[in-house]
């Protein structure tokens, strides 16, 4: 009960968080092996052919919201690689999370800076807000961006103690802005332009110093009070130089060696990774260099000690599997391959999809009130005679684990990335669905395997993306 009318009854901060790293990894040395140059050491994360920034955003937001019982009043989605222009992408995430229709959904579009911007804005706003950041980074073959970029997402629930235990409070924040053209990309272009690096370095240095000083002042701390600083941005050299000049105890691992730079999502992904390893009463700074500098200073609370992350970033990094460079290029539309000689899928009907919103986006079935029998998709008439017409309760199944009952490999059906691996899965507590598997090697599927649901882009037809759910080998704790 805030008597003053201002949210002073509790400091605003992070209530929950989740980072998402897609399953596939490209070994950077594979680039030079094919092209004769490019690449480097380590791996980068690669979104699967059925993922985009919206689906990765859904996965991160699901991980972020799973540990808490919250009712977000807004969802903000930021990416430099939006699936749609014109149409809001945040609404699909909103639908997949089954947020109330009175909770707004907005895109913070286009710029890499929009991710940290959405996060800082939410930390200074009112009401429980989900901030989702996602990006797919790349460039032309052999270029630096192809090798150093990464794909991923991060999501945060921001609010006050009224909304849930705050695990990291905002101590201070600052922004420094200047117009200069260092990195740029026109809509639809496959690669990002870059001015001579030395120029950008001269801009970022002073801007970082200015914002850093202001943020420390606002938080009323000194640089050496900061336990760890997350430093990232669009200018690699400037990031390194600024990180070295902050004067903090430790600079966070930027996940370059395994994931790469996930652009819009990266400050959030790195912050989530640090929070998963942090202890209460630690000060964490986030410094993002992108067309200026954004700084956040956060302090972890006692609540962090009892916070159980759904699926730590480190575990996701450890669980990755390789993708070949040829497949990577194909998934990124850098090379076109002969499609199967089968009819392409047809676009989903907007009106049919809207009627089925809770099923299609939320993976909600129905359960007979008498029989308890699960129906996927939801049905009005039960397969069991004891249920009356329409005597069905909604059955949210997105977070229920399942087991492969049987499976097959379909080498005939149309797919962007054949073959299709398909399984009949039985859900814990009853219920069955024949469903496509993803993030899976056809040779490794087995009866009895544990799977979990994941939100994917099934295909694109006539410019419309068809989103629905697939199953993947269990990565969360619901697995074996």
């Amino acid at each position: 009960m805030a008597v003053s009318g201002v949210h002073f009854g509790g400091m605003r901060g992070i209530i929950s968080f989740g980072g998402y790293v897609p399953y596939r990894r490209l070994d950077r040395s594979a680039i030079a092996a094919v092209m004769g140059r490019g690449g480097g050491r380590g791996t980068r994360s690669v979104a699967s052919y059925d993922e985009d920034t919206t689906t990765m955003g859904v996965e991160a937001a699901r991980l972020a919201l799973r540990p808490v019982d919250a009712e977000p009043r807004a969802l903000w989605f930021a990416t430099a690689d939006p699936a749609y222009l014109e149409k809001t992408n945040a609404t699909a995430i909103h639908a997949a999370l089954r947020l109330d229709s009175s909770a707004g959904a907005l895109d913070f579009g286009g710029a890499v800076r929009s991710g940290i911007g959405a996060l800082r804005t939410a930390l200074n706003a009112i009401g429980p807000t989900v901030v989702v950041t996602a990006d797919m980074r790349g460039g032309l073959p052999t270029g630096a961006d192809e090798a150093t970029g990464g794909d991923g997402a991060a999501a945060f629930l921001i609010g006050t103690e009224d909304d849930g235990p705050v695990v990291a409070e905002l101590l201070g924040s600052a922004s420094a802005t200047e117009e200069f053209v260092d990195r740029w990309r026109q809509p639809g272009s496959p690669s990002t332009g870059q001015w001579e690096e030395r120029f950008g370095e001269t801009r970022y240095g002073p801007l970082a110093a200015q914002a850093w000083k202001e943020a420390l002042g606002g938080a009323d701390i000194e640089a050496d009070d900061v336990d760890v600083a997350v430093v990232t941005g669009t200018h690699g050299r400037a990031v390194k130089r600024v990180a070295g000049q902050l004067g903090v105890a430790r600079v966070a691992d930027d996940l370059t060696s395994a994931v790469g730079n996930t652009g819009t999502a990266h400050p959030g992904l790195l912050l989530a990774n640090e929070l998963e390893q942090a202890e209460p009463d630690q000060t964490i700074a986030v410094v993002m260099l992108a067309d200026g500098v954004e700084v956040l200073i956060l302090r972890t609370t006692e609540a962090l000690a009892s916070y159980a992350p759904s699926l730590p970033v480190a575990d996701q990094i450890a669980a990755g599997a390789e993708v070949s460079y040829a497949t990577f290029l194909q998934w990124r539309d850098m090379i076109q391959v002969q499609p199967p000689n089968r009819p392409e899928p047809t676009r989903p009907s907007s009106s049919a999809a809207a009627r089925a919103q809770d099923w299609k986006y939320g993976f909600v079935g129905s359960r007979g009130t008498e029989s308890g029998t699960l129906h996927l998709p939801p049905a009005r008439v039960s397969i069991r005679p004891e249920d009356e017409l329409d005597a069905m309760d909604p059955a949210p199944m997105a977070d229920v684990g399942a087991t492969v009952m049987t499976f097959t490999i379909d080498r005939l059906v149309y797919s962007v990335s054949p073959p299709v691996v398909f399984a009949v899965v039985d859900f814990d507590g009853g219920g069955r669905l024949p469903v496509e598997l993803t993030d899976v090697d056809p040779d490794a599927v087995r009866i009895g395997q544990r799977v979990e649901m994941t939100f994917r882009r099934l295909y694109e037809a006539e410019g419309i993306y068809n989103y629905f759910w697939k199953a993947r080998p269990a990565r969360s704790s619901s697995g074996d």
Partner: protein
Amino acid sequence: MASHGIKDQVAIIGMGCTQFREHWDKGTDDLLIDAATAALASAGVSKDDVDAFWLGTASSGMSGLTLSQPLKLEGKPVTRVENFCATGSEALRQASYAVASGAYDMAMAIGVEKIKDSGYQGLNAAPAPHDGTKRNLTAAAMYSLVLPAYAARYGVDEDELRMVVAKIAEKNHRNGALNPLAQFRREMPAEKICEMASVAGRLSVFDCSGVADGSAAAIVVRAEDAHQYCEDPLYIKALSFVSGTGGGLIDPEYDYTTFPECEMAGADAYRQAGIDDPRSALAMAEVHDCFTPTEMVLMEDLGFCERGTAWKEVLAGTFERNGDMPINTDGGLKAFGHPVGASGLRMHYECWLQLRGQAGDDRQIDLSSRNLGLVHNLGGYPGEMVSFVSILGPELG
């Protein structure tokens, strides 16, 4: 409420069937004209003698105009029916009920499919507008789920079971090789099929039905009128149809080793025909061998053998043309080909020939102890299918 059937009320007095093959030089109209003409000639009647028409096609045309225009039918009712791959049988079922009711004296059931104009391999039906959540899987892959499930339930080695279903393809190819109307007339040893690349689960292309164009037609009248047209009509003993709930897709109790819709349609047909033991009553059966595992499971669903024993009976040769229970003596969908809307009537055409002793010396089955035939025709997938079963015989009673 009951499924009473129309045993011995309706007779087939003439049938026609085109060759099933890739008819690059024939369109839907040509195939319809050819099958209709052959059926009319077989019955010794003209198109003007036929009072009403039921046209089955899955996707080669809409409405009765698909038939009335090419045949220039003047003032006649034509009903287009569609029921997945059981479309042809559905046309026969409706035509039979029409004459049994007394509404018409003579009706034609005709099925057609012109598949090879799509430019793609396989069967490709245009979907209705959808919400984008339907599964993306070929029929071959859906039916491939039967093999591991059956192997697990009955403790059969998966490699051995794979050979068993290849033997089904081998048999049907052997039968097709003798049939001048069949699409594939080459024998195909099971060992060779097992060596082929898998396209869906463990199934190879040769475990799938042939993709063909074709048409087949039947002319039906009330049984009491049959001898006006025909010395040896074929009587309809039973017509059954079951359209499933789709429950198999969502019910964890379903195990992919049986097709309950087919079992139900079979049981209903046996009731209608007064058959207690199908194995001892039936001289032959034409069944829907869309994929080789389908035929194996159907042997159990239709009561030709005990559950869990079909695979042994296949190896024992029971279902060979000269075996105890001849199955798909014309080559089946596997070797005769599968023009969707025509296949159900093609199955009846084989009964028409065999049960009246007209199949020819090299193909004719033994009718000395049994003379009833069964047609089973399904559409859909394990877990969600429609199933048709008819029983036919050359004698009343």
